[in-house]
């Protein structure tokens, strides 16, 4: 009896260690987009009907948890056939370097670049590594954008009208004058989810581009220009000015974006800083909201105001997937005009296929109009060290709560920058 039990145990252990056979007619996709899950399922059913290939979308939300899941899956070598990398370009580079992501260049360039030409170049740029990239990744296209996005300022037409403001502000001084008018009628000015630090970072980045231009920003990241430079202090002073002018709605400093979205949708603030995905959110929260999109009001005329944007969500293909070709074929299908128009209609996101733009709602058109003025850390030649970014963003928070001056923040950020540079040299 003892021996039978022993034999069964050994069998059980061996069976547990055996590799499971992979179904080669099913694609597994892990995603984080709660608002698109239903539309994805509909498209998956359509694809199965057309091709016989089953597509399983597995939702893992929120995005922070998804990000962690993908990293854990990479460490355990159990990534699905298609997944997204919601992280900095350096992390995407690490995934590629480790052999987790397939190079799609050949597919994009086939038939005289037919697939590539249908998509917004800015969206593709996020997934592209160019010649001589700092990560030393083989030049090519490694991801497929399924929508595009950009982050702008939005204004509530009703509240602006209440304060007697006829047109949205174009310059920072006009904006401050509008804030004064709004304060007079008791309407809070700007609300944003700056508790999610990347959003405050994006706002600061817009003004950095406007005040000093891309070259100087990149020089700072390379360590050639210090953060104590007057231009960087000017960027930080934007937040001090907003604070002094009473432009920020209560709690903006550490508000989660979903609450900021709620505040704007429910007309608790006249301006917000948010991405094009908000169209869907506001539509669900308050379908009668009258609002428009605008670029953040410029401070300087020396450089154009550049906003963060490009690929909204991208998928990459697992390089070791046994159904790699089928996965690529599905992504190609997903970015075709019909599927893109369906996704735009259902989820109110900007399509990555430029041919699908004709069928989008008017507010989305306002977002689409400035796609040429978008930029993003994922397309920059250099990226700042994450610890320096953290110090910079936390510094912004400390300026907003009136705890520190822009000059002090600049000194602290520069101190961390120098420390990280020394560490990198070692």
């Amino acid at each position, binding site marked *: 009896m003892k021996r039978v039990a022993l034999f069964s145990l050994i069998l059980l252990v061996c069976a547990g260690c055996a590799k499971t056979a992979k179904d080669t007619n099913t694609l597994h996709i892990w995603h984080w987009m709660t608002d698109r899950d239903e539309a994805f399922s509909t498209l998956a059913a359509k694809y199965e009907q057309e091709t016989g290939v089953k597509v399983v979308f597995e939702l893992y939300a929120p995005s922070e948890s998804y990000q962690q899941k993908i990293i854990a899956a990479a460490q355990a070598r159990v990534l699905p056939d298609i997944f997204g990398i919601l992280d*900095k370009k350096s992390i995407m580079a690490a995934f590629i370097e480790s052999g987790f992501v397939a190079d799609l260049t050949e597919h994009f360039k086939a038939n005289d670049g037919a697939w590539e030409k249908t998509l917004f170049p800015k969206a593709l740029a996020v997934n592209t590594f160019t010649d001589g990239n700092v990560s030393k990744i083989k030049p090519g296209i490694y991801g497929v954008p399924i929508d595009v996005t950009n982050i702008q300022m939005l204004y509530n037409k009703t509240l602006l009208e209440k304060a007697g403001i006829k047109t949205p502000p174009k310059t920072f001084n006009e904006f401050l004058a509008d804030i004064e008018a709004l304060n007079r009628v008791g309407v809070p000015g700007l609300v944003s989810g700056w508790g999610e630090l990347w959003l405050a970072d994006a706002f600061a980045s817009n003004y950095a581009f406007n005040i000093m231009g891309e070259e100087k920003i990149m020089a700072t990241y390379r360590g050639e220009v210090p953060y104590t430079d007057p231009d960087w202090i000017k960027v930080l002073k934007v937040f001090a000015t907003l604070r002094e002018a009473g432009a920020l709605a209560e709690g903006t400093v550490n508000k989660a974006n979903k609450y900021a979205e709620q505040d704007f949708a429910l007309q*608790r603030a006249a301006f917000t800083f948010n991405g094009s995905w908000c169209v869907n959110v506001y539509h669900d929260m308050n379908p009668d909201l009258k609002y428009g999109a605008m670029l953040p009001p410029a401070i300087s005329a020396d450089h154009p105001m550049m906003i963060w944007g490009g690929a909204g969500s991208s998928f990459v293909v697992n390089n070791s997937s046994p159904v790699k070709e089928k996965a690529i074929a599905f992504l190609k299908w997903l970015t075709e005009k019909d599927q893109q128009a369906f996704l735009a209609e259902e989820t109110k996101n900007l399509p990555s296929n430029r041919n699908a733009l004709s069928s989008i709602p008017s507010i989305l058109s306002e977002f689409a109009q400035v796609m040429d003025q978008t930029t993003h850390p994922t397309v920059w030649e250099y990226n700042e060290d994450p610890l320096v970014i953290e110090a910079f963003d936390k510094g912004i928070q400390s300026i907003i709560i009136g705890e520190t001056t822009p000059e002090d923040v600049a000194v602290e950020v520069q101190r961390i920058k120098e420390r990280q540079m020394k560490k990198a040299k070692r």
Partner: protein
Amino acid sequence: MSYLRLKAFSLPRTLGILENYLFILPAVAIFSIFYVYPFYEIFNLSLHDWNGISLTRQFIGLGNFKELAQDKIWWSSIWHAGYITFIALTFQNALAFALALACDQDIRMRKFYRIVFYIPPVLSEVVVGLIWQWILYSGMQDGQHIGLLNYFLNWVGMPHLVHNWLSDPKTALTCVAIVHSWKGFGWGFIILLAGLQTIDRQLYEAARVDGANSWTMFRHVTIPMMIPVLLVVVILTILGSMQVFVLVLSMVGQGLVYHTEVPVTRILASMTGTNQFGYACAQGIVFGLLLMVISFIQIKISKNTKQA
């Protein structure tokens, strides 16, 4: 001599021993896979510079620990956790003890109170955080406060107390600590109530016969008899409060500058925010050791108290 050797290498005996080992193999394997290996891997990672994805890691020896020793934000996060723990030890446990004492008496609706006081601990920390975020919300609409607390303060004629509770460094951490105490007092309440009910009622009778009043009975009967239970509650409170983080994340998100950082949020930030897996592991080890030291001190105190 040769007989002894033969006995030592007896095949059936060796097989029997092997068989015994084989039976404990699953337990050893599970223990090794889920305890020994992760501990080893965390320690090993703490000696490396690794972004969590790359196939290569750079060995840096004790570099992460040296950096951690100079990381002011890390040590301030431990201080913050200590502050939350202090509030929990005092406010939370005092409340739990007072309510346990009340429910130990012969009062009406005793069972109802027991259930009500036990509701907060069984609620999800995320839910509790979000509810309190709404209570402490500082926004306004059409000149009216939306947050329940500010609305109430305004309504009762105390508008000067209306505050930006979670966005002010002076109040944010205290708010988190109070909510943590509110959520946690139910555990202490149940344990302390169970402890109170084990005290022999004859001790109180005897004290009463000797002319002791309520206060004297509390000081000389209840407290000494409750010391072992109180120590358990104190240990659990310290371990639970030092590791608080879900509540922090759900109430103040990524934080208010560094004023609401606690050790676990720093570990998370190192791991997922700045992709320093090795550094995060070093933080985890240092924090784990700190908790172990605290626990050992408490066990020592507990033993000494019992002996006394």
